[in-house]
Structure formats: C-alpha cells, structure tokens
C-alpha cells in the first residue's frame, strides 16, 4: 500500500545552510501492517510522514500511497489517508460533531454518509455525551477522540500516526493504542512514528530506525533485537544509534 523509493528532503536554512532532513530512504508498508518509524527528535520522522501525506514536497525520489504517486497525484493521495498527530489542534469554536462533519465534507462524503459514520464512530469511541460540546470545553482525552474521529471519518485505507501518544496520560494513550490496533485489524496500512520503545515493541510489525535523515536499520522488533544480541528492543535501538 505504501512504496517509498529513495525519498529525500533538503531544506535550506539561513543559519545552517543546506539540511538533509531525509536522505535516500526506501521501504514498503503493507495493508494490515503497523510500520514503525523510530528515531530521536529531529531524525526526520515527521518530515518523512509529511512528504508521504503530500504536505511537503520531496526533493528527490518518490513514493506511492494507496497506489497514487505523492509527487503527481497529491489530491488522490490525500483522499486516501488519515493523519493523526498529538500536536494537532481542533477548531475550538466548533462542536465535536461539526469538526468531524467538516472533514467528512472535505473528503467528499455525502450528508447521509457523514451522518451514518458519525453515529457509528461516536458510539464506538463513546463520544455521544460530548458530541455537541465545543472543542474548547473538552478534556484532553475527549479532544483526542475527536481527532481520531476526524482522521477516520472517510475510512482511509492508509493512516499516519505522528507520535500520537506523546505527552498523553496513560488512559488517553490507551484509547489511541486500541484504536491503532483496531485499524490494523481492519486491514489498513499504518505508519506509526514514535520514540516510545514499549509502544514499538508492543505494536509494530516492522520498524525502520532513522537517524539524521537516513534509514539505518529495518526489520521486525524481534529481528533487530536478535541482530544486536540485546535482551530488549530499547537496548537494540541504542546500539544501532550509537554505531551510526
């Protein structure tokens, strides 16, 4: 479902000069798979995801998402993806229902379809109690559930999660993790960026470790642990990073 070929991204910064945020990265991610992007802050994970979501333009290489080229078929790609980031905000002056409806409309869903999907999602995520509440009055957990509903209203085959549990309390984080697992069970293609080791080991089918924009290791958590001869995945990760 996602094929990445030699993808690169270069930024020009006045102070730092040319910065290679992502260098020549290639990998594949299949339906029903949770593909982890692992790396320290500034490693290039978010840039990679933003390129795949077509909101940043690749400097080199290309990728296909759900069969569409990110460089030439941006709108087609965006119709088929959902994007969830912990840092993403909500429209505070709109209600939970209005936010989700808006994204349903933007994704081309009919009014009746939006109504049906909202009914379904709000029941699944237990959102009916605060459906008419303005987003600025919701708790962090409620907001996160609205973000999830917004990301899946159009039932995208591909989902990107950019550090979705970062900074959340354990209960809210559990909701997100459950949701990601449900998406996997539904056969969606999932790219999951994080630097929380237990999440990786517990959820990811395969992991790509990124450092300074380069893909330095790729495999299942068990494979990487075995390759490095470490008792746990976190130690394997540090060993790989340190060797780089």
């Amino acid at each position, binding site marked *: 479902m996602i094929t990445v070929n030699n993808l690169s991204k270069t930024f020009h910064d006045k102070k730092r000069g040319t910065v290679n945020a992502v260098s020549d990265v290639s990998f594949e991610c299949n339906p029903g798979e949770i593909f982890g992007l692992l790396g320290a802050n500034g490693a290039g994970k978010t840039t990679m995801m*933003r390129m795949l979501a077509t909101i940043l333009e690749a400097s080199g290489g290309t990728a296909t998402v759900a069969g569409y080229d990110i460089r030439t078929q941006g*709108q087609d790609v965006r*119709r*088929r993806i959902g*994007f969830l980031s912990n840092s993403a905000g*909500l429209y505070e002056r709109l209600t939970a229902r209005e936010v989700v409806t808006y994204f349903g409309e*933007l994704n*081309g869903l009919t009014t009746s379809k939006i109504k049906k999907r909202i009914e379904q999602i709000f029941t699944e995520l237990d959102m009916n109690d605060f459906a008419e509440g303005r987003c600025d009055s919701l708790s962090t957990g409620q907001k996160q559930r609205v973000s999830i509903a917004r990301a899946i209203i159009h039932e995208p*085959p591909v989902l990107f999660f950019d550090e979705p549990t970062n900074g959340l309390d354990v209960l809210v984080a559990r909701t997100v993790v459950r949701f990601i697992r449900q998406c996997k069970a539904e056969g969606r293609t999932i790219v999951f960026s994080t630097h929380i080791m237990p999440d990786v080991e517990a959820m990811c089918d395969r992991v790509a470790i990124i450092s300074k924009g380069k893909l330095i290791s790729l495999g299942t958590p068990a494979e990487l642990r075995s390759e490095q001869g470490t008792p746990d995945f976190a130690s394997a990760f540090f060993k790989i990073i340190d060797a780089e």
Partner: protein
Amino acid sequence: MRPFLEKDPTLKQTLPNLILIIFRKEFREIFRDKRTRMQVIISPLIITPVLFALVGVLAQGQAERTKTRTYSLGIVNSAAYPDFVKRLKSAAQSSPQFTLTDMKTEAEGSASIRDRKVETVIVFPTDTAQKLASSQIVEVKMLTDDGNENSQNATRILTGVFQKINDGIVKTRLNEQGMSVDVLTPFKVAEKNIAGAGGSGMLILTQMLPYLLIFSVFGGSIYAAFDQVAGEKERNTLETLLVSPARRRDIVLGKFMAVFSVGLLSAGMAIIGLMIPFFSHLKIYDWLAQGGLHLSATSIAVIILSVLPMCLLFAGLLLGVSTYARNQKEAQSYLGTLFPLVTLPALLSLFVGTDSGIKIALVPILNASIMIKQALNGNYNPSFIAVAFIASAAYAGLVLLYAIRSFEKESILLKA
C-alpha cells in the same frame, strides 16, 4: 475489513466544491468569535447611533449655554454712548446676559482680558455722541481673545447687537430724509432648503461615510483574517487541513471568501448604523436628520461599487499578512505599519475634491473615498469610477495572488 473509499458507492466520485465548504465553515467559526460579533454587528448598530446621539446632546447643550450664558464685558467710555448699556441691560431673560464693568482706557481693557477678568471689551471713542449726531462713522473697537471660546461667543453676540443698532440708526436717518430703508436692499436673497435634497446631515454623511466604511471594513476584517491562517498556525490546526483533499488554492480562496464576506457585512452594518439617526425620528437626532436624506439608486450603486473592491483589497491584504505571520500576535504587530497605509489615504480624501483627476483613481482606498463622496454629492464621474474599480480590483487580485503563493510554500507549515 470495512469498505474503503474506492469501493463505497455512497461516496461522491468527484469532490464537491471544497472552496464553498471551507468558506461555510470559516464563516460560521468567525461569528462564534465574540470579538468579531462585537466589531461587525454590535459596534456599528449601537455605538455609531449612540455616538451621534451624544454629539447631538453635547452640541444642543452647548448651543443652549451660549444663548443663555452671562458674559463679562468691559466698556471703555460707556458714558459716550449710554444707549448701548441700556440695550444690553434690557435684554430678555432668554437672551445672553452681560455683566458690565466700566474701564478707563483701552490698555486697562487689554490687561483685563489677559487676566481673564472680562471676556470682551468694547472701546467707544469719547466723541461718539458728536459723530453720531453729525452722521459720521464711529470707529468702535472690540477687544477679544481668540483663544477663549466665551470671548469669541460674546464677540459674535455683540456684533449682532451692533448690527441691530446700525439698522435702527440707518432707518431713522433715512426716514428723516423721507426715504425707505428698502433703498439699501436692492436684492433680498432668501435661502430655502428643499426637503429631500439633504440637509446638514448629508454634509456630515459625505464627510463621514468614507471614513466609517473604510474603518468598518478594515476593522471587521482584521480578526477574521488573522484568525484564518495565523490563528490556525497558532492552534496547530493547519497541518490537519493541509492533509485534507483540499488544494491549498481552495483553502486560501475559501478563507478569502469568508474574510471578504465579513468585510461586506461590516460595511452593510456600518451603513445601517449610520442610517438609524436619519430614520429613527428621535428628537435627539433632529440636528442631523432635519434636512432629510437623499440617496438615489445610482448613488447606492456607486457606493456598492466602491465597497466591493475595498473589501476584496482588505481581505487579500490581511490574509497575506496572516499567512506571513507565525501567529496572531505577530500578525497584530504588523498592524502598526498597516494602519497608516489605510488611514492616510482616508485622511487625504478630506483635501481632495470629488472632481479630482483620473490619476487619483489609481490610489487605493483614496479612490474608494472619492467614489463614495461622488455618490453622495450626486456628481459622478463614470471614467473615474471605472478606473477606480478596475484598479482596486487589480490590487485585490495581486494581494490575493500573494496570499495563495505564500500558502503554497512549505514555509507556511515550517513557520507554524
């Protein structure tokens, strides 16, 4: 596995009008902001009429005080013309009153004015009676203080008193010669204000409407525009929107339409607020509305023609600033530069006549002010209006293009 997009027959094959969807959402969200509601609706509908009422109350109060006030008057050589003192003392209670102080010299009068002991001093020549008797001109001096409003008012009232004295003396002299006073007035010109052509209110409207519309549209559009992009960056909602199927151009145009609509609504509300004094029939607005209001269909059309490109220009300009800024605070800091750019042309319209040359039609904002003035005066210049409209629309197009180009840059996300 649930059906995905391609397989679901209930999904629309082609995307709907995303610009319209974005516009609807933005417009709704804008009006949930108290600041916008206050600026666009409450302020023009309440504050403008209240302001006019306040001006009316103050002006009427001032006029009343001027009429009935007691002024302090110094008279040098009052004995030379005692009739004058008698006349002032016999003034009706409803007329201005004077407390009189006898003075010996002009120098004493000047000093008294400087020391604020009196407000005005009249200096009669010692030979006043003799000159009057021999029909010579009596040169009376009136010492006043230009920096003292009461002195000015007293001078105006006393000039009226002298006019009446002059008229009376001239009439007596002419009668003695067997002539009518009419011999001095070959033409008697009477001004008559025609109802419906507009009175003093129209004059005030001509001066104020350009300002009011410019500031209303600009002020109303500020919060809306800054909330649209800079606000989205600040609240981290921009990335989510960019990941949607909407193209960046759709997003900017949707937001632009929303800001433009707020600008138009602001202009409409400003006009309604300004009309309230004219049509409310309240006594407090008599000073403004007594001459009526005359606006032809063409005048209204010209005003709309001037407002449309102005709303477009401000929407594009403010959206451009909002796109450039990292957050709303930064966007507001650019207002310091923007305000003079907007207020200066509006101020210049005070000094530029409605018959100004075609080059003026190229100056944004000023051209709109002149168009509004032309509309209210009824002396339209079609060439001016056409050039002004096209120029303003072109400027609006340029700033909108800048906003789209800025929005299409990656930096919009990286600066967030």
